[in-house]
């Protein structure tokens, strides 16, 4: 009964890997667009964990409800984040996050 894909462990391992890849990408890349995509990866990993745990608590669907709201918030975040990237590009002519240092000087 311990077959691949039919217990929570396999989903937890996959989500851990996805979240770690996203976190490392966010911390090491310097392109604002790539960093935003890495944030999306992390949000998707969390969604996967919520839905996977919801699969063993079949009486309720709170996990899927949570994941629904996370998707809604992520969509809003992407809209505002990309608008900010566009505004930043208009000011500095770059999407390199190291160029966002106006407050430091």
């Amino acid at each position, binding site marked *: 009964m*311990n*077959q*691949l*894909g039919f*217990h*929570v*462990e*396999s*989903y*937890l391992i*996959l989500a*851990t*890997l*996805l*979240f*770690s*890849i*996203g*976190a*490392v*990408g966010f911390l*090491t*890349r310097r*392109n604002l*667009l*790539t960093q*935003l*995509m890495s944030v*999306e*990866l992390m949000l*998707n990993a969390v*969604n*996967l964990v919520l*839905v*996977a745990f919801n*699969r*063993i608590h*079949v009486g309720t*669907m709170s996990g*899927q*409800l949570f994941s*629904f*709201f996370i*998707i*809604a918030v*992520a*969509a*809003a975040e*992407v*809209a505002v984040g*990309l*608008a*900010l*990237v*566009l*505004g930043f*590009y*208009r000011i500095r*002519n770059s999407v*390199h996050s190291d160029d966002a240092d106006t407050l430091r000087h």
Partner: protein
Amino acid sequence: MMTTIGGIYFSVCAIACLVGALITVLARNPIRGALGLLTTIVGIAGLFLLLRAQFMAAIQLIVYAGAVVVLFVFVILLLGADAHDPTGPGKAKLVRVAGGVLLSASVGVAGYLVAPELAEHPMPFVAAPAGHGSVAAVGSLLFTEGLVPFELATALLIVAVVGAIALARGRSENKAVVAEPHATLRLFHGPVHSRDAGYPLPKGTDR
């Protein structure tokens, strides 16, 4: 370990997720990164189907693959060649090493903390009742228990969209500066309205 159709399906989706995530993080060209993100999202939607979350799989495809990735691609196309990252992933050796150490450390800590617990209390799937994760079930839950957060999410989305438009449009001060002297010049250098210069009125106007 028994290999079944479900196991093979899980492996395909998981490999798609991981490969897409790696492409997203490692690609120098952001368009490739966006396509890697798309691969990951489709893989996760497939896993949602395996987890009996049909509604979430549909939402995942509609919102992420249909809206978020398209928005990313639009912005990348708008920025053109400037969206390209010349340095690529971790040009400095230190950054590359730090990334690898961070990745293995987070996976290792998670495995060290979680694996013993899971070995003690295995959590296999139980038989799901009919309609678990269906549109009707999640939708009715959304409009009973989750009604207040649902309405708040709609408010959040409308505020985010208005804010995004306001941010992306930028300031239009140049237009106002150009328009003002033109109107004053016209006032002093000739008739204000074409009617006063003897030109015929455009059709459909009554004055």
